């Protein structure tokens, strides 16, 4: 299968700190990949590089063959990459429905003047957007909360709403930044089903940052491990669990453990 996302030798430094060093990753179309690593390993920084929040110092990022270097976040969203945030960034004062509807804007074709004149074409499009937004909310079990302010939702629902909002931009690549953070085991179970379902129904490629290992191991087909901005391993969940470098990164080696004592 052709690669949808191709990250080639990307590096980024903040002053003297190398946040990401010579990082390469290739995601096959329709794959579900986990990105794990200890705190501060550079996972979110990598997401920020992929979505144009930061620009790489060196290296190249390709999405479906299109170069993303130098593009601003909204251009990358238009190119087909959507994301959620580790620290939830919803539009708190807007309703749940509006949070999703505003994201449909990216694929809308009618502009400001059509909205002001309320042309027939504009009204049709608005109706279609409202319908699509409601369908997404139903899929995510949020339909009953459609009229509520987003900030009034419980934490788990806010995380789900962020995924729904990202999907409303009709992405080809979905980047999920710790979607299970703060969820209880039941919610995590539902989330696991949801992620798999989203991948199949929306035909998106998913890259998932997650600290909950059981979730990652169960849902992801492949896993990439980062530590100190460097990719130290990549493979199937089974391979990763046995990888000596990964175990060392998470648990420390016998030597470094002895040195710490």
């Amino acid at each position: 299968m052709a690669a949808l996302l191709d990250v080639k030798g990307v590096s980024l430094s903040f002053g003297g700190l190398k946040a990401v060093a010579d990082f390469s990753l290739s995601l096959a179309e329709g794959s579900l990949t986990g990105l794990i690593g200890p705190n501060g390993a550079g996972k979110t920084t990598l997401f920020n590089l992929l979505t144009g929040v930061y620009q790489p110092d060196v290296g190249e990022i390709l999405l479906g063959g299109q170069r993303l270097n130098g593009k601003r976040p909204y251009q990358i969203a238009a190119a087909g990459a959507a994301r959620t945030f580790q620290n939830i960034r919803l539009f708190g004062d807007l309703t749940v429905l509006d949070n999703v509807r505003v994201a449909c804007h990216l694929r809308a074709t009618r502009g400001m003047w059509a909205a002001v004149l309320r042309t027939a074409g504009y009204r049709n499009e608005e109706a279609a957007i409202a319908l699509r937004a409601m369908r997404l909310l139903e899929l995510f079990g949020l339909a009953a909360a459609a009229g509520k302010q987003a900030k009034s939702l419980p934490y788990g629902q806010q995380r789900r709403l962020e995924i729904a909002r990202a999907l409303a931009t009709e992405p080809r690549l979905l980047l999920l930044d710790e979607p299970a953070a703060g969820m209880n085991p039941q919610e995590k179970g539902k989330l696991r089903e949801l992620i798999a379902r989203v991948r199949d129904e929306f035909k998106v490629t998913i890259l998932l940052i997650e600290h909950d290992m059981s979730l990652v191991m169960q849902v992801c087909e492949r896993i990439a491990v980062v530590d100190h901005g460097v990719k130290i391993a990549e493979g199937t969940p089974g391979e990763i669990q046995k990888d000596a470098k990964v175990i060392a990164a998470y648990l420390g080696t016998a030597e470094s453990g002895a040195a710490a004592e």
Partner: protein
Amino acid sequence: MVTTPQAVVRSLLPLAVAVGVAVGLELLLGLLGFYAQKILFDIGVNIILAVSLNMVNGFTGQFSIGHAGFMALGAYGSIVVTYYGGYALFGDVMMHSTVTGYALYFVSILVGGVVAAGAGLLVGLPSLRLRGDYLAIVTLGFGEIIRVVLQVSQPVLEPSEMAAVPWYEQPWHLGRSLGFVHSGSYNTLGWTWTAVAVTLLVAYRLRESTHGRAFLSIRENEIAAESIGVNTTRYKVNAFVLAAFFAGVAGSLFGHQLGAGTASRPEEFNFMKSFEVIIMVVLGGMGSISGAAVAAVALTLLTEALRSFQDYRMISYSLLLVIVMILRPQGLFGTHEIWHLLARFRRKGTR
């Protein structure tokens, strides 16, 4: 896309109703005294100013504090059209209560709006690329620059002097700090409230559209807005230019109001005027169109009630603002709208 007659009707019906009301007001003119007319005029202009500023400060969450500057550009731009343009057209500078005269006034309102919008684009493009308080600083400076520039313009040309000055230099003769005294008091309540209706309609339709929600998303969370594909700079500039346009229209109306020796003085468009509009927006609730409109009505009436204490007006405004910020920091309406509350009320009623 086939445009059916019904679609056209649905698109324009609210406007037609509003113009009907405005014309009704116009016909009532005879019954209203000059005082009542003046208050209704002030209310209308303030609604336009508050609702348009709300598009920037309320919708996109930026902080513009130079609205009076755009109003001044609109006022002077439109007066130039009716005064110097009128001279070119009629050969005198009197007011012409003819179809041509009012057509000229209509054009002048649009010119006032466009001049202000153009300035909005010039000011907005560089300053809206930045996040934070830069816009506040730039717009504050802009408003003051406009006022000072108007003060150092040339005296207004008398008809006898027109021939000596080439047409392209005439618009610079704006009457210095004395103000642009002219006789073109074209504006009436019909014009004023039609403009109010257009402003409210545009604001309402934008607010309730996918495009308008993109404005709101910038206010709510700029990083998330970018992540779902909102070109935040472009949208901020759009909102800013649109707001400047309506401020310009308000200025055009203001510049042609009925009054002894109809004049626009630079002093009318000082920082205090900008501040007044900000108070209306904050008081009404940042982001609420109905809130801005209601606050504009209330504050205009309050100003009238306190006319005898005029010198202390800003003190009472400031006090009012402090009290509201303590008791209801989100403003009267918060981000809600009257029509949202009505819809909720109706749903409850049918249950």
